[in-house]
């Protein structure tokens, strides 16, 4: 009985936990509840992934109504894989949150914070699991609205303006998506993604279809922060509370990337997306530009959260690059980078949260001599940073390997060279921090600092350790990503 309803439970559990947090009215019980919910969700998505790998895609009908009239939850390897990423990140970040939240957010708002965090989690999982295009919009807005309020809880007053800017761009993106879905509905009379794909496949390309595609791609692009639609991202990541940054940096863009992949491969089909709409020809230059601009700007940042945010713009470029290469190897690279980037960026932003807790600043000057003052935390930064560069034996290397192979397979030598050159830029911005932390002395008058508490170090090192583990034992992640890439390229849902 419960086993059959796992897909629904995955979304309903966090959705129910959020209002319970409001009733609890206290920080600590809400935190325990959020953590337990995340762990349960991780167990559920792990089970679902296993089931999908063994028995093929699952279709779950909400309330027992047949699609395309009822809403169905469709799970295949692709979204089971991304769900595992999201729940795994949540399972590490939620237990980590407590000390950092107590430090950065007034006690009266703790339960509200966890409620919003759980709602955001619900929205992300809903977007992944649902097989209904309009349902995606609803979950997208649930996730976005809670993210705006989470961002606005940052300590600096600039958190408010960043949240406002994010809201304006996010709401515009959401509405663009809504217009696209509306146009598709007017063409086909259906909202179910699989059904839409069938009906659109039988149709001649027409102007409504092109308009719908443009609106959908732009709307999702805004949420994904594809260069040049990324302007909300650096501020939102910089001024949000540290825990929120770690969570949304590791999950939200990944889910948006999943939506983009679903749109291009399942909904429209590779033929339409690439033969008629030339999506690859648009995305490829944007991806390369995003990689270089993001990395270059990152080099000149003095606030390290901001530096990592710009590095995220570049990393999103790598994922989009994988999608626009149009072969299984490239797409595998893009998908494996979803997982890898979630691990390393989540881990690095968690390091930032640890530093923020102890020093109250993530300005580069605060890092002077930190290699000796907070050795365990800084070691995590070094390993995460190496992974961001793409050094062998870390996950970053695995993604770049597939991306470069994919580029060569597509006959795009300059792209392969560009992907490698851009790693050098990552060396520059990561090295800058390492140099300050290990080769400069702390100022004489610096107050002694403790190492971050264990409740934060353990989750951080779990994430960072995973970047090394999956960098050495690549079969699991790359295997699932390759399977997912094949499922997408095959056109089947």
């Amino acid at each position: 009985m419960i086993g059959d309803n796992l897909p629904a439970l995955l979304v309903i559990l966090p959705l129910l936990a959020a209002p319970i947090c409001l009733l609890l009215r206290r920080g600590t019980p809400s935190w325990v509840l959020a953590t337990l919910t995340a762990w349960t969700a991780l167990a559920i998505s792990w089970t679902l992934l296993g089931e999908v790998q063994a028995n093929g895609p699952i279709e779950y009908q909400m309330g027992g109504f047949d699609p395309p009239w009822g809403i169905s939850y469709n799970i295949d390897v692709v979204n089971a894989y991304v769900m595992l990423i999201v729940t795994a990140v949540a399972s590490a970040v939620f237990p980590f949150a407590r000390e950092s939240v107590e430090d950065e957010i007034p006690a009266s708002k703790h339960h509200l914070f966890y409620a919003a965090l759980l709602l955001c989690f619900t929205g992300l999982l809903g977007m992944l699991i649902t097989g209904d295009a309009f349902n995606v919009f609803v979950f997208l807005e649930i996730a976005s609205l809670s993210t705006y309020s989470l961002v606005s809880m940052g300590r600096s007053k600039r958190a408010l303006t960043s949240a406002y800017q994010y809201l304006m761009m996010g709401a515009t993106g959401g509405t663009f998506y809504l217009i696209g879905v509306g146009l598709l509905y007017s063409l086909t009379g259906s909202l179910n993604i699989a059904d839409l794909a069938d009906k659109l496949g039988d149709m001649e390309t027409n102007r409504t279809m092109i308009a719908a595609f443009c609106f959908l791609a732009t709307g999702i692009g805004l949420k994904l922060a594809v260069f040049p639609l990324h302007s909300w991202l650096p501020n939102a990541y910089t001024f949000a509370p540290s825990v929120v940054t770690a969570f949304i940096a590791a999950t939200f863009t990944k889910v948006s990337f999943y939506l983009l992949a679903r749109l291009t491969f399942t909904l429209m089909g590779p033929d339409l997306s690439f033969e008629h709409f030339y999506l690859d020809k648009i995305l490829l230059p944007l991806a390369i530009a995003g990689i270089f601009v993001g990395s270059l700007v990152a080099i000149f940042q003095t606030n390290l959260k901001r530096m990592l945010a710009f590095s995220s713009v570049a990393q999103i470029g790598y994922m989009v690059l994988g999608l626009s290469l149009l072969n299984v190897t490239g797409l595998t690279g893009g998908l494996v980078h979803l997982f890898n980037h979630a691990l390393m960026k989540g881990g690095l932003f968690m390091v930032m949260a640890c530093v923020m807790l102890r020093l109250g600043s993530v300005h580069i000057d605060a890092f002077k001599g930190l290699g000796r003052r907070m050795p365990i935390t800084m070691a995590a930064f070094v390993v995460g940073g190496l992974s961001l560069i793409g050094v062998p034996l870390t996950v970053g290397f695995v993604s770049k390997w597939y991306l470069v192979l994919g580029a060569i397979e597509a006959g795009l030598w300059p792209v392969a060279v560009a992907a490698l050159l851009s790693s050098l830029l990552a060396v520059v911005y990561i090295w800058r921090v390492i140099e300050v932390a290990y080769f400069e002395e702390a100022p004489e008058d610096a107050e002694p600092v403790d190492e971050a508490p264990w409740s934060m170090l353990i989750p951080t090192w779990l994430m960072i350790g995973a970047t090394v583990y999956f960098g050495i034992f690549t079969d699991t992640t790359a295997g699932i990503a390759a399977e997912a890439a094949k499922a997408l390229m095959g056109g089947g849902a």
Partner: protein
Amino acid sequence: MIPGLFNYWMVVFLMMAGLYVVIVRGNLIKKIVGLNIFQVSVFMLYITMGKVTGGTAPIATGVEDTVYSNPLTSVLILTAIVVGVATTAVGLSLTVRIHEAYGTLEEDEIREADEIREAEENA
């Protein structure tokens, strides 16, 4: 009667007007107004789509050959309206707090205040 595509032209006009206000205006409240106009135009798009000429509300009357309008688009828009209201509420509450923190609602004045503060911090 309204000639053929009148509604759609109005949708396009409102959509562009709303988006223009969101992009160009510097006042935070006016931006939210623009966003609302933009969203309302999409509501109109959906509802116009579902309207069948001569169709009545979709309530089973028992009379044969009754033409009904498509109820689904209206139902979808009910959800979208809720989302729009929620977005506006979050946006306005952020605006209130921005006004408390900065004492102004003009984007360029806020940016100036931030720049001055940043320069002071770095000095």
